[in-house]
């Protein structure tokens, strides 16, 4: 009982803080936190693939971007769409592409898989970048944000930042809980088994391909949810949302926060966004701030080298190091 309370203490506190946040702030901070929570959903979707199943995808941004574009492209030009069909439609677009890419990519392993997922994401990027479909490099605007209309009454106006904030927060909580339950289920355990030792799973009688494909498609769908939310929030989409920088960034969030834990993904999203903001802070870095990718790149290298279990794994890392030191001292 106590152990459960201790484990839940941090996530619950964070949740309470997040729920109370809009009461204390407005404007930039509110918008920033909304964005970060959307990135957290994006990161959670990748955690299902990388952390839970061991499939390192370098093309996850494609599913994020496709849903975002679908949101804008499927919205009628002269009125608001109902979120009740727009959201499923956008997510389905991402899920379908994930199904297709997964069916082909999962025929490969290891490094090949990494390269192939990147290539398929690049293919989607080029479709939006080079063709008129996506308005080219300039991107396209969402004319009317979708509305939540139930039985004829407008429940929420996503145009209002506070309303959107809560929509995103609730989505994040729901996705987190869903994944937490899913990973403990039989399906989730099979994924864990595949990550640990796929050969043994096959020898026991699990056809591993359908499971991996299901995980890949689900991860794509959840990334699509994040894409939908960001399109509604910003009212604007552009091809860079599918770029490999975006795919690299979300992978980075996972390793920054710590893989193998759902809270690691959320923590990583916050850490990444804050780092990026920090490196662009002219007050600290002056003129050098415009070269923030340099510092980000250096930080990535240092993080991976010295913090392989991410921020979440730091307490355990410190404890292990202290334990080793005391045994060394005891021996001396």
């Amino acid at each position, binding site marked *: 009982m106590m152990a459960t309370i201790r484990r839940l203490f941090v996530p619950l506190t964070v949740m309470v803080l997040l729920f109370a946040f809009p009461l204390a702030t407005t404007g930039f901070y509110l918008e920033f936190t909304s964005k970060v929570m959307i990135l957290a959903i994006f990161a959670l979707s990748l955690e299902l693939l*990388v952390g839970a199943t061991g499939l*390192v995808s*370098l093309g996850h941004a494609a599913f994020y971007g496709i849903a975002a574009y679908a949101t804008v492209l499927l919205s009628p030009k002269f009125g608001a769409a109902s979120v009740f069909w727009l959201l499923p439609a956008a997510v389905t677009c991402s899920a379908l592409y994930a199904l297709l890419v997964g069916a*082909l*990519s999962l*025929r*490969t392993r*290891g*490094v*090949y898989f*990494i*390269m*192939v997922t*990147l*290539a*398929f994401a*690049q*293919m989607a990027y*080029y*479709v939006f*970048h*080079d*063709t008129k479909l996506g308005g080219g490099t300039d991107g396209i605007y969402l004319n009317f944000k979708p509305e939540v209309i139930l039985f004829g009454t407008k429940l929420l106006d996503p145009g209002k930042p506070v309303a959107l904030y809560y929509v995103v927060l609730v989505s994040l909580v729901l996705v987190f809980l869903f994944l937490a339950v899913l990973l403990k289920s039989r399906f989730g355990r099979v994924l864990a088994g595949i990550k640990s030792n796929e050969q043994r799973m096959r020898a026991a009688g699990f056809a591993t391909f359908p499971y991996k494909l299901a995980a890949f498609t689900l991860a794509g769908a959840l990334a699509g949810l994040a894409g939908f939310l960001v399109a509604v929030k910003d009212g604007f989409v552009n091809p860079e949302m599918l770029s*490999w920088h975006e795919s*690299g960034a979300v*992978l*980075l969030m996972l*390793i920054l926060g710590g893989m193998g834990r759902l809270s690691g993904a959320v923590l990583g999203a916050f850490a990444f966004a804050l780092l990026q903001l920090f490196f662009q802070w002219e007050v600290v870095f002056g003129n050098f701030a415009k*070269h923030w*990718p*340099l510092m*980000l*790149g*250096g*930080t*990535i*290298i240092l993080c*991976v*080298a010295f913090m*392989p279990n991410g921020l979440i794994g730091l307490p355990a890392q410190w404890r292990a190091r202290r334990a080793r030191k005391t045994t060394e001292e005891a021996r001396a």
Partner: protein
Amino acid sequence: MDLPTFLVQCLNALQYGLLLFLVASGLTLIFGIMGVINLAHGSFYMIGAYLAFSLAPVFGGNFAATLVAGLVLAVIFGYALEWLFVSYLYERDHLQQVLMTYGLILVFEELRSILVDNDVHGVPVPKWLDGSVQLGDLMQYPVYRLAVSAVCLAVAAALYVVIARTRLGMMIRAGSSNREMVQSLGINIKFLYRVVFAAGVALAVLAGMIAAPVSSVYPGMGAQVLIVCFVVVVIGGIGSVRGAFLAALLVGIVDTFGKVLFPQAAGIAIYLLMAAILLWKPEGLFRQG
């Protein structure tokens, strides 16, 4: 399409494919022998191009001197990079390698931004290669492009000789199929790795330098070539230089003719090719072992 146009496109495809081979061969060798997936490999290509641009005024436009200087710098740079950075990647899993080399890309891009700039540049074709060859009645083909293909073919031939006929090549082939065995044979593995890495860097830098007059010098060129090289390596099989050669030519043909025949689908032709091959032969066309 009439014959001269077809011929021109064939030569373009050949030139593009051969340049791709130069870059991809380094990538596949480094992975095949050292087991390191290096996302920053495309950056070397970009560095080569920007080197050609920056060094040109130093040598008063003497392209040959620029090339030599660039290659020397590339080898030194590659050697140092392996020693200081890449050697720490060998024991790490693919995900960590991917992320650390991704960080490296960001560092390289910004360094270029600081040391040179973020602009698009042209590099003039060296005067003694600045001419055209007549093809048919109406078509002309730049001599320089033929020279690029020739240089790539020469390098490919040299690679073949080294890999197939020398002791170093034997170690490379052995290391490619069984890394642990090579290590246990007591071959100075550290030196071998450093040499292979430096060679891989030099190949990519060379490709970037000779490509500069043709494809111009722009910030995104590293990323672009990297992803295409991934397609080449997937099709050709990791660790197989022969596979990389054939796959690079195939990709060159599909990309060039794809752009000519279906300009709307321009960028995606090679990915469709990759998808088709994955459907048919997931292990790659020429995978060894």
